[in-house]
C-alpha cells in the first residue's frame, strides 16, 4: 500500500484484511451476529466504566457520597419513566422473534405476499 503523496489529505485506514474469512458456526450470518453481539458487549463495558468514573468523581468532589446510587430511591415519575424505557428496549430487542415465532403464520404471510406479487404482475 503506497502512501498519498505530499500535499494530499490523509486517507482512512484500511478496514478489511486480505485472506477471506473462515466460518465456524452454522453459517456466515451466525458469525456476523456473534461479532455484532461482542462489539455491543464491549460498548456496554465502556459505558459501565464511564458510570464508575462519574461516581468516583462525584464522590471525590464530595458532591455525592460513594453509595449514593445504591441508596437512591427514584421518584414515582422516574420509576414510571424507567419502566417504559425498559419495556421498550426489550420489545425492540425481541421484535424479530415476536414477529417470526409463529412459523406457520409467518409462512402464510409469505405465501400471501407472493400471491400478491403474481396478481399485480398480470
Amino acid at each position, binding site marked *: 500500500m503506497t502512501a*498519498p503523496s505530499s500535499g494530499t489529505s490523509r486517507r482512512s485506514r484500511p478496514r478489511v484484511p486480505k*485472506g477471506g474469512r*473462515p466460518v465456524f*458456526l452454522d453459517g456466515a450470518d451466525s*458469525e456476523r451476529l*456473534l*461479532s455484532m453481539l461482542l462489539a455491543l458487549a464491549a460498548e456496554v463495558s465502556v459505558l459501565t466504566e464511564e458510570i464508575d468514573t462519574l461516581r468516583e468523581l462525584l464522590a471525590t468532589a464530595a458532591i455525592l457520597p460513594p453509595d449514593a446510587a445504591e441508596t437512591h430511591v427514584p421518584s414515582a415519575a422516574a420509576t414510571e419513566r424507567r419502566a417504559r424505557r425498559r419495556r421498550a428496549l426489550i420489545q425492540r430487542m425481541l421484535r424479530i422473534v415476536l414477529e417470526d415465532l409463529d412459523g406457520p403464520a409467518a409462512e402464510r404471510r409469505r405465501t400471501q405476499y407472493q400471491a400478491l406479487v403474481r396478481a399485480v404482475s398480470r
Partner: protein
Amino acid sequence: MYPDTPHPLFPRQSPEEAARHAFYKDLKDLVVAEVKPRIAEHFETLLQPAFVAAHGREPSTTAEAGGAVSCDPSYRWYSALARAQHELYVDATAECVERQSEALRERCREWRNGGGPGSLQLDPALARPDYQRDVDSHCVPGGYFAELAEDDVYAGARYELGISLYTLGRHGAMNDSKGHTGVEFLRERFSQLAPRRILDLGCTCGNSTLPYAEAWPQAEVHGLDLSAPALRYAHARARALGRAVHFRQANAEATGFEAGSFDLVVSHILLHEVSAGALQRIFAECHRLLRPGGVMLHVEVPVRNAQLSPFERFMADWDTDNNNEPFWRALHDMDLPAAAASAGFAPAQVFDTQFVRGARAFTNDRPWWLFGAVRAPGPSP
C-alpha cells in the same frame, strides 16, 4: 488521556479506548482459559473414543484428528469467538491509532530530525516479496505496511499497541521478552561472546532489538525490516528511549551488508512469516554476514510438529488457516537443521532448543524456541 504509557511514543488511549481494549483483552483471556480447554476435554472423553469405535485405532494424522474435532461445538465456538475477538480488537486498536496518527507522525519526525543516536535508512524502491505482499499478517488490514500519509508511522504504532493486547501483556510492558530471552540464552550458552556488531532481522518496531543494545551497549546494533512505517516508528522509539540502533529498510534475504561484518545475527518471530524458499535464503544470508565464530539465533514460536500428537498438531495449526499465517504449518514441519546445513552451517554447530528459564510464548505458554548456529571458519557456499 491515560498518562501511563511504557514510553513517550506509545499510542495513547483515552479512557473510553482503554475500557474497550480492556474488554477485548479480558474476552481473549477468558476464551483461551475457559473455552479452549473444552476442546481437549471433549477430544479425550468423546471425540477420540468415537473415532476409535469407528476405526479400531486412534487418529494417526493431523487430518484425522482435525476431522474428529472440527465439527464439535467446543472447537467451533472457540474458533468463532477467537476470530471475532481478534477482528474486533484489531479494529479497536487501529481506530485508536488512526485517531492520533497525524500527531504520532509529527512527533516521530521531530525525533528523526532532531539529532540523536542511531540512524534510519529507507529504500522506497525496495520490492516487497510475495510472502508479505499477498497477505495481511494476523488479519491486520494493510499488514505491516499501511501508511495514511507521507512519512507515516501508522502501521508501526498500531503494531506496538496491538501486540501488547494480543499477547495479553505477557511479553512485557515493552513487548520485549523475546529479545531478553535471546540475550539471556546467548549469555548462558556463549558466555565468551562479546558482539561488536549485531543485526536484528525483521525488527518491526525494534521492541526485540533494544534488549541487545541494552545488553551490549558498546556494540553497533542494526535493525532491518521491509516496512517503512514500522522503521520510522522504530527509529523514533529507540531515540526516545535513549538507545542507538541503526535501522535499515531491506529484505532479510539480501540485506546489502558486507560479508563477515556481524558477530551476531538474530530474529524474533520472523521465520514463521516468510516462505520455505525465503527461509533458506535468509539462512544463507546469515552465514554470509557472520564472521567466523559469529552466532545466528532465531527466537520463534515454540511449535515443532514432530514432537506433537495429531490432535496437538491440529490445534497448533489453527493460525495457518484462521489468522493469516500462511507459513506457520510449513515452518513447524520443516527440518531446520537441514536448512542450516544447506546454508553452510556445520551440523555440529547447530543448536535447536528451548530456553526453559526464560519467558514463555503467549501462543501456547511454552518457552520460546531457539534455533541457530555458530559460523565456522571458511567461505559461504
